């Protein structure tokens, strides 16, 4: 078994927010994964942005998601500057309850050789710099035996 996957050293991960993205990160502090859904046409979008790209509305409902996700694509990063020993499973995930929106994240605590497109995941939260929390993903043991349809 290879070294288990991790994240960048969490204390060094910094984020910044603006008026469009702040609710996403405030919800993460409460261990909730949320996504903005246009209050007029229902289109989800990530990253959060000031306008709905479908209808240009600025009205948003912040929807709390189940935290389930599937791997749309991924890369296994072997070492980053200053941390040559790190193994990261960097993933782009589809969110089944926010269709059309994707997140870029990490799958943690797994054997990098087992990550596949379509692998079912569930969200977790890691404390990072300045009191924020970062959504990351773990392989979903409940869904693994009955995988979601591969994307």
């Amino acid at each position, binding site marked *: 078994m290879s070294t288990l996957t991790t994240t960048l050293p969490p204390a060094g991960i910094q984020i910044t*927010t*603006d008026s469009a993205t702040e609710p996403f990160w405030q919800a993460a502090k409460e261990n909730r994964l949320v996504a903005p859904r246009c209050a007029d046409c229902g289109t989800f979008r990530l990253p959060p942005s000031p306008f709905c790209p479908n209808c240009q509305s600025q009205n948003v409902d912040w929807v709390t998601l189940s935290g389930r996700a599937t791997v749309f694509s991924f*890369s296994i*990063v072997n070492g980053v500057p200053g941390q040559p020993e790190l193994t990261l499973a960097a*993933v782009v995930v589809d969110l089944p309850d926010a269709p059309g929106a994707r997140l870029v994240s990490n799958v943690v605590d797994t054997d990098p050789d087992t990550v596949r497109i379509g692998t079912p995941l569930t969200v977790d939260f890691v404390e990072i710099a300045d009191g924020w929390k970062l959504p990351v993903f773990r392989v979903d043991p409940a869904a693994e035996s009955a995988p979601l349809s591969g994307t």
Partner: protein
Amino acid sequence: MSASGPFDTAIVGVGATPYYRRGGSAPQTITELAGKAILAACEDAGLSVRDIDGFAYYSGAGAGYGQSMDTATFMETLGIPEVTFSAALTSGGGGSAGSIGLARAAILAGDATVVVTVMALQQVKQRLGTVFGAVAPSPENSFLQPSGLVGPGHLMSVLARRHMHDYGTRREAFAEIALSSRANALTRPKAIMRTPLTLDDYFNARMIADPLCLFDFCLETEGAVAVLTTSAERARDLRRTPVGVVAAAHGGVREWGRAFAWYGMPDEYFASSGHAPIARRLYDKAGITPDDIDVALIYDHFTPMVLMQLEDYGFCKKGEGGPFVESGAIRYKGGSIPVNTHGGQLSEAYIIGMTHIVEGVEQIRGTAVNQVPDAKLALVTGGPATLPVSGLILGQMA
């Protein structure tokens, strides 16, 4: 306009510094490197630097990563008396080929007569390979940077993975692009990499961002390249055989957008290069098909993006790029469409797309080191990257 001309504008001069490995161009400055390239392009064209009255940049006039170029500084240091046009395409390397279209637009509008496009870069303050990991956090990149995808190759490895999944593309295809480029560089006096690359070398290399290894990544080099564009009428009186601007296009569609900086591309765009709309416009403008292209200078920051551009430019069907390159189709010797006869950014030097324009000019002039016999039309591309991406078709003047 058609591929047989007459053309309205032409490239009349190209110039470059030597190419250096990272750190090797010191103690020259960005302005010094760019100035040397501009003067060399003027010498090539038989023009005085005082004839330059326009600047058409890309990358927002950025010079590599975190440095910039400035028209007033060039005027002051090179003694250019008056400038009547100074503009840049937005975003990054995706605009390299399209910057010649910006020069053309200035000339056709009557806003300038001799327009220079220049790129210079040094990689000591910031190297390409980790540029995305090093920038300050922003609200936008806070949705990307924490993942540890620290450089553009890391980001594009995610697209490569999806292409492998969707179409069965093999690492052997990426290897062939690296090996073919290296074979072309072996005969190039200025190439940084001049030792043969084998399939064993490729498969034994460090996996930087699996599925991509060291040899899938372009070089981190330094130097400067400048290109001079003028009207077709004026071009006929200059020193070198003019190279016609057959067609130029930049832009792209919202579905590609910021590409691997947002990853929101719908499935049918994700494992692509974002160039399909550019290809369509270029071929329409030129009145040609991919079969008419004699040599393709394809922006090669990372091997899979060459493969996906070959698909988007119609040299093979979507999804068939892997078998297409594995068949030897892109080889200078024996291929059906020779690609990156100069060794590209993978093996000659990475100057953010400019070396591809130079090679396109030399192929059409008939003076390339690895000359494609009787090359009449050359395709040059910029990107794939955050929009705009761009393309350029160069041809022999009628």
